[in-house]
C-alpha cells in the first residue's frame, strides 16, 4: 500500500508491504542508514528516531503506521551545524564504536528538551531504553548533562 512520510523535512511517497518495519523502510527504501538495528526484541534502542516529536523505537513500528507522520532521524538532527547533543557526545567521548550512538543521541535529545536542570539519576533513568556495550555509560551521561545545559529551557 502507498504511504507518505516526511523524514528530515522531505516528503516521500512509497509503496510498501504492510509488514515493512519502519526501520527497514528508512534504511532500505529511503537509504537512510544512519539508524541502526541492534536487536530484534525491542530492547536495545539503537533504532531510536523521532516520530511526531517523540522518541520511538523504529523497529517496533510498522512503516504504514507512520503514514502521514513527521520523522526525524540522526541524519536530520544537525541543522547546518551540529546539534548541541551531537557536539556534546563528541566533546565528552560519549561514543566508542558508534553503533548505539544515533539512537542514544536521538533518545537523549528528547529527554533533555526543556529540562536544563535534569539530574544524573533522571538521565540514567531516561536512557534505560538504550543499550551501550562500549562506554559503560559514564561519558554518555556527561555528554547529556552538557547538552542539557546548552539546550536550555523552552
Amino acid at each position, binding site marked *: 500500500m502507498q504511504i507518505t512520510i516526511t523524514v528530515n523535512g522531505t516528503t516521500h511517497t512509497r509503496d510498501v*508491504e504492510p*509488514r*515493512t518495519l519502519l526501520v527497514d523502510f528508512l*534504511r*532500505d527504501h529511503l*537509504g*537512510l*542508514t*544512519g*539508524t*541502526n*538495528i*541492534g*536487536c*530484534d*526484541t525491542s*530492547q*536495545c534502542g*539503537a533504532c531510536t528516531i523521532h516520530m511526531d516529536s517523540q522518541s520511538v523505537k523504529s523497529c517496533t513500528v510498522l512503516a504504514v503506521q507512520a503514514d502521514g507522520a513527521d520523522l526525524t*532521524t*540522526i*541524519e536530520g*538532527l*544537525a541543522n547546518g551545524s*551540529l546539534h548541541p547533543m*551531537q557536539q556534546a*557526545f*563528541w*566533546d565528552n*567521548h560519549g*561514543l*566508542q*564504536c*558508534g*553503533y*548505539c*550512538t*544515533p539512537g542514544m*543521541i536521538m533518545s537523549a535529545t528528547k529527554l533533555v528538551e526543556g529540562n536544563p536542570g535534569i539530574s*544524573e*539519576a533522571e*538521565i*540514567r*533513568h531516561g*536512557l*534505560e531504553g*538504550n*543499550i*551501550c*556495550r*562500549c*562506554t*559503560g*555509560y*559514564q*561519558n*554518555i*551521561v556527561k555528554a547529556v548533562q552538557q547538552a542539557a545545559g546548552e539546550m536550555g529551557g523552552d
Partner: protein
Amino acid sequence: MSKYMGKAVKRVEDPRFIQGRGKYVANLKLANMGHAAIKRSPFAHAKINGVDASAAKALDGVIAVYTGQDLQAAGVGSLPCGFNPPGIVTAPHMPLAVDKVRHVGDGVAVVIANDIYTAYDALDLIEVDYEPLPAVVDAKKATAADAPQVHDEIPNNTSFHWPLGESDTVMGAMNESDHVVELDFINQRLIPNAMEPRACVAEWNAFTEEMTVWTSSQNPHLIRLLMSMATLGIPENRLRVISPDVGGGFGSKIFHYPEEVIVPWCSKQLGQPVKWVSTRSEAFVTDAHGRDHVTTAKLGVNNDGTFTALHVQTWANMGAYLSTFAPMIPTALYITLFSGLYKIPHIFGESWGTMTNTVPVDAYRGAGRPEASYLLERLIDIAARDLNMDPIELRRKNFIQPDEFPYQTPVAMVYDSGDYDQLFDKAMEVSGYNEMIEERDRARQEGRLVGIGVSGCIEASGAGPSKVVTSLGAGVGLWEHGLVRVHPTGKISVLTGTHAHGQGHETTFAQLVADELGVPMDDIEIVHGDTSKTPFGLGTYASRSAAVGGTAIMKSCEKIREKMKAIAAYQLEAAVEDMVYDQENGTIHVQGSPDRSKTFVDISVAALMGHIPDDMEPSLEEATFFDPPNFTFPNSAHIAMVEVDKESGEISLLKYAAVDDVGNVINPMIVEGQLQGGIVQGVGQALLEHGIYDEDGQLLTGTFLDYAMPRADDVPMSALGRIEIPSPSNPLGVKGAGEMGTIAGTPTVANAVMDALHPLGVRHVDIPHTAAAIHGAIQSASVSAD
C-alpha cells in the same frame, strides 16, 4: 614536551558516527545484490537425514538455496582452528552442517533472494528432516564415559589437555602449608553482544577474477589468510577483505565464521553480490561465546599470609566446534597468568578443552585472563577471611616488588614492570578505603549487609612475541605492521594492520605520528581495515594495538626522520651527524645553526624530485614489522562497595574505584573510556550476565530480554585513577588498556558481595550474583545457622 601524546584529544572518528554516517557493513548496498538468510538448527544435536528446499526454491523472488552437501561437493573447506597445542585432537567444522548439527544455531542451508523479507519467508519453507540425538552441555560432564559424543574424531569429547608448572612438587608444598583454601567454582558462559550484529557482503568480479568481501571483523588480513588457505582456496592476492567501521567486537569478531565462507561462495556461484546480516537472535546462537570454565582450585597459605602453592584444574567448554583461537584461551592465556601480582613459589595448572553441544566458545574481552584473575582473587579473598586479615594487607604480603622486574613467574610469563604497592596505595586513596571500611562497619552494626570488595589483577597484553606464541601452538605470529607514507605535499598516510572497532586509533595513532614528526594531526590519515590498502597485519585484540601496532608506526617514523635528516644534510651540504630533527616543529636544521634549516614540505618535495643523495632511493615511505620481545603486563587495583537487601537479595552497587597501571598513555580520555566500558562489562559478569543452556542444549538466554546486560542506571560513576609505569616491552612504554576493566570488574564486585554476606557465614556463591542467587545463599545460611 609533547604536543599530542598524553593529551585528551577529541576523536577524529566521531563526526561520522554522531551524524549517522558510520560505514557498517550492513549499510552497504551494491547493484544486483542478493540477500542471504541461513536456516539454522533448532536442535542441539541431531542427524540431518535430508533437506527439502523445493518449496523455498519455488517461492517468487528466491534466487537459490544451497545446503552443506552442495558446499562440500564444491570443495569448500573446513573452518580451521588456528591454535594447536601439542596433542590436540580436532574435528572438521563445515560452514554448513552436512550430516549432523551440533548446536542450536548450527547452519544447515542458505537462501539467497531478491530481498531480505523474501529470504526470511523462504527459510520457513525449507524442511529439514532431523533425527534428534542426546545432547551434552556441561564442560566437565562432557568427559564422562556415557556422555553423548559430539564428534567421532574427539573421544570423550576431550580435544586437548594442557598442563603447566610443577605437578610433582606443588602438592608437597601445599600439604606443608599452614592452611589450604579449596574452592570448586564456575566462571559462567557469557555472550559478548557487541551492538553491531555481524554482517558479510561478497562480490565476485568475474572480469577481474577477484573476490571482494566486506565483513565486520577485528582482523581482515587474518580472515583473508584463512579464507585463502583453508576454506575457499581463493588465491590470497585475488582476495580483498574489507572491514569498514565495526560496531564493537570484544573478541567475538576475531574469528573466521561460516558466513564468511558461505557468502563469498554464493556470490561466485551466482555471479552477483550477496549480503548477509545477522539478526540479534541469530547472533546469540552463532557468535562465539566467552568464559564457561568449571574449576577446582587450591591455594596454600601460611599463617603469616604468605602464599605457598597453587593447584588448579579447569574444564573449559569449547562448544560444538573449535573456534579459531579457542584452545588458546584456557591455556596459554590463562594458566600462564596464575602468578597474579604475587610471588607464589609452586604453581601447577592444567586444563582440558571439552566439546559440548553449545555455541563455540572463544576469546571474550580478557580471554583467559579474567578467568585467571577471578580464580586467584576469589581464593585470596577467602584466605583473607580464614586468616582474619585485611584483604589488601594479605595481598601486599605477597606482591612482587618493583626491583624484582623483569620477574620470571613459575608459569612461563616474564612480567615487565610494576609497582603494586603504589597501585594499591592510590586505590585506597581514590576510593577512600578507610572511610569505606568505617561506613561498612557502621552499616553492619545496624544489621545491613554492606560489603567491600577488592581485587588486584594483571594480564598479559600487547600480544605478542611470535616465537613464544607459535611455540605454544599458534598458527600465526603476533607481530604488527606499520607503514608511514609521506606524500609529496607533506601529508601523511599511515597504514596499520591493526583494526579499531571503537578504540579510536584514527585519533591515537595520528597523535603519535604528529608528535614523532612534528606535523599537524589534521595532515595525517590513519588507514586500516582493507587488505588492499594495508600490508598484512594481525588485527586488534589482546590490547595489542598501541603496544605492537603503535610501536611499528613509531619505528617507521624514526626511519622517516633519519631519511629526512639525510636529505636535508644533502641539501644543506652539511654532515648527517650534524642534523637535528626538531620534532616540535617538523623541521630539520644544522646543529647550532637554526637558520640553516628545511621544512617538512621542503624535504617531501625533494624526495619526489629526486633531489637526494646519489645512493638514496626516492620518496619518503618507511615500514616496520615489529615483533615485540615480550608481552606487556597492565595491572590494576579496584575497590567496590555494595549493599545486599537481606530480604530480596537485590544488590546495589554503591561505589566503584579503579586504579590501573596501563603504562604510558597516548590519549587519557580514550584510555579512561576503555577502562570505564570494561569495568561495566566486568560488573555485568558479576551481577547480571549468564548464557544459560538447559539440559537439551536449548539456549534459554537467547534475546536481549532474557540475557541481562547493564544499562545506564545499573552502574554508578566510577572513580578512576592511574599510575604510569612504562613497559620495557616496547619503546612507547604502553601496556594496553582495552581489557583491564573487564578483568578487574568481575572479582571486585563479586568479592564485595561475598563480603556483604560474610557475617552470615557465606563462603562462596557462584557468579552471577543475581538477586535470586543471593537470596538463596542467605536462606541457606540462616538454615544452617539454626
